[in-house]
């Protein structure tokens, strides 16, 4: 598993997001240390996906600052395309490009954003596909792949850009139960390799085993955060206790 070139940290400072006068995030602050994994858990509608999407500004925060590797990415003169090319994102619904082959899904950004010549892009893409065990399917269309295979390609596509940070937005939620484990294995390997990761997930076992930090979000606020041991074994708030009991 390719590790981050130079692990960087992510600081979210006082993030507020308002949709149509409806506050989705209220003053959320979070520090992700370089090379660590933070899992964000919480009930649906708690704002955890919105928060993750603020990190690469797929959602524009209404207020607050996001600093990645020392660079304020929410400032007006931030080059958002350049920043996004260093922040990989994996989506719940895979979002592969259906009109392209698996290989082309990966080479597109390498060629257009990284300006790699085709040969080099293909070599990088093939190496990345090998990592997720799908090199044999490089000429297939996404529609010819299972959900688990599609998500592996999506991960390979993000990793091929050699990101400093990886964001996972409920990456296993759309998968059949028997396909979840394979994706979580890849994510665990990636976390162990020293990638800085932010993971929105319902997989509490994954959070317990792979996270350095677990954040419980409810109604747009961070209710509790800390190492998984503390959050899962000694929750201090009723809301987290209630949430954990419902998830078991």
């Amino acid at each position, binding site marked *: 598993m390719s590790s981050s070139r130079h692990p960087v940290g992510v600081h979210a400072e006082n993030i507020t997001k308002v949709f149509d006068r409806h506050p989705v995030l209220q003053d959320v602050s979070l520090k992700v240390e370089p090379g660590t994994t933070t899992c964000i858990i919480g009930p649906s509608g708690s704002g955890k996906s919105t928060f993750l999407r603020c990190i*690469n500004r*797929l959602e524009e925060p209404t207020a607050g600052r996001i600093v990645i590797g020392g660079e304020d990415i929410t400032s007006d003169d931030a080059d958002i*395309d*350049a920043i*996004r*090319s*260093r*922040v*990989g*994102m994996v*989506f719940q*619904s895979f*979002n*592969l*490009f*259906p*009109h392209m082959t698996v290989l082309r899904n990966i080479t*597109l*950004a390498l060629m*257009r*954003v990284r300006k790699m010549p085709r040969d080099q892009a293909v070599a990088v893409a093939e190496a990345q596909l090998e990592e997720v*065990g*799908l090199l*044999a*399917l490089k000429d*297939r*269309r996404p*529609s*010819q792949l*299972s959900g*688990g*295979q599609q998500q592996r390609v*999506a991960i390979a*596509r*993000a990793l091929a*850009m050699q990101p400093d940070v990886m964001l996972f937005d409920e990456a296993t939620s759309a998968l059949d139960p*028997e*396909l979840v484990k*394979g994706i979580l294995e890849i994510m665990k390997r990636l976390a162990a390799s020293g990638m800085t990761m932010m993971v929105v997930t319902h997989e509490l076992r994954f959070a317990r085993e792979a996270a350095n930090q677990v954040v419980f979000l409810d109604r747009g606020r961070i209710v509790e955060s800390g190492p998984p041991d503390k959050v899962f074994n000694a929750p201090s708030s009723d809301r987290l206790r209630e949430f954990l009991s419902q998830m078991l």
Partner: protein
Amino acid sequence: MPEGLQRLWRTFFDVDQIMAILPEMLAVGVPNTIILALVAVVIGTVIGLVVSMMLISRNAIVRMPARTFVDVFRGLPVILTIYLVGQGLPIAGIRIFGGNSYAYAALALGLIEGAYISEIFRSGIQSVERGQMEASRSLGLSYFETMRWVIVPQGIRRVLPALTGQFIHIIKGSSLVYLLGLLPDQREIFSIASDASHISGTLSPMVAAGIVYLCLTIPLTYAVNAFDRRLRDGARPTPEPALTPAHQS
């Protein structure tokens, strides 16, 4: 045969007249129709790409002129547009093509089709899932790169059948350029039939034209549908290599 039926037959299906007009129709009319339609398709597609992008802009100043263009050129009768462009422009002093009414005709058709194609492209582009834009932007591609490589190619594929209808529309619409007055060797299929009908006093040359139009439009429909199927199935239907169990998950 009753007399009425015989008259009908002589008027519309006079085989001698049809055979007499076919050589000129195929040698002069078909090439001209195809050239007019192709030029109009190119103009219309280029306009369609640009205007459809403007139509989905969040900026009202960008959206407004595009909206106006589409509403006007879809809303006017084709004949009026052909007159306005073909005679109006030169009278207004905009003699881009000199006195060549053929070129004005192609431009008029291109503008009309551009308006229709803009709306077709817009609906196709807007039908592409939001996640496609998000995935592409999150890889660092710009808005325009994302449009160029991810959104527009998918959007256009979804509206290919509607686009076929529009291309047929162009082929038939090219028959109206006779309004601008054409030189003998500029005449397209319909003009030739129309002239021959006036001379012979029967409508059989028109029927010949109809047959030739169908010979152009029906194969076009099947060709686009075949192309559409090929795109949907993903290139070619070659047998897939067998998978090893390790790749199944």
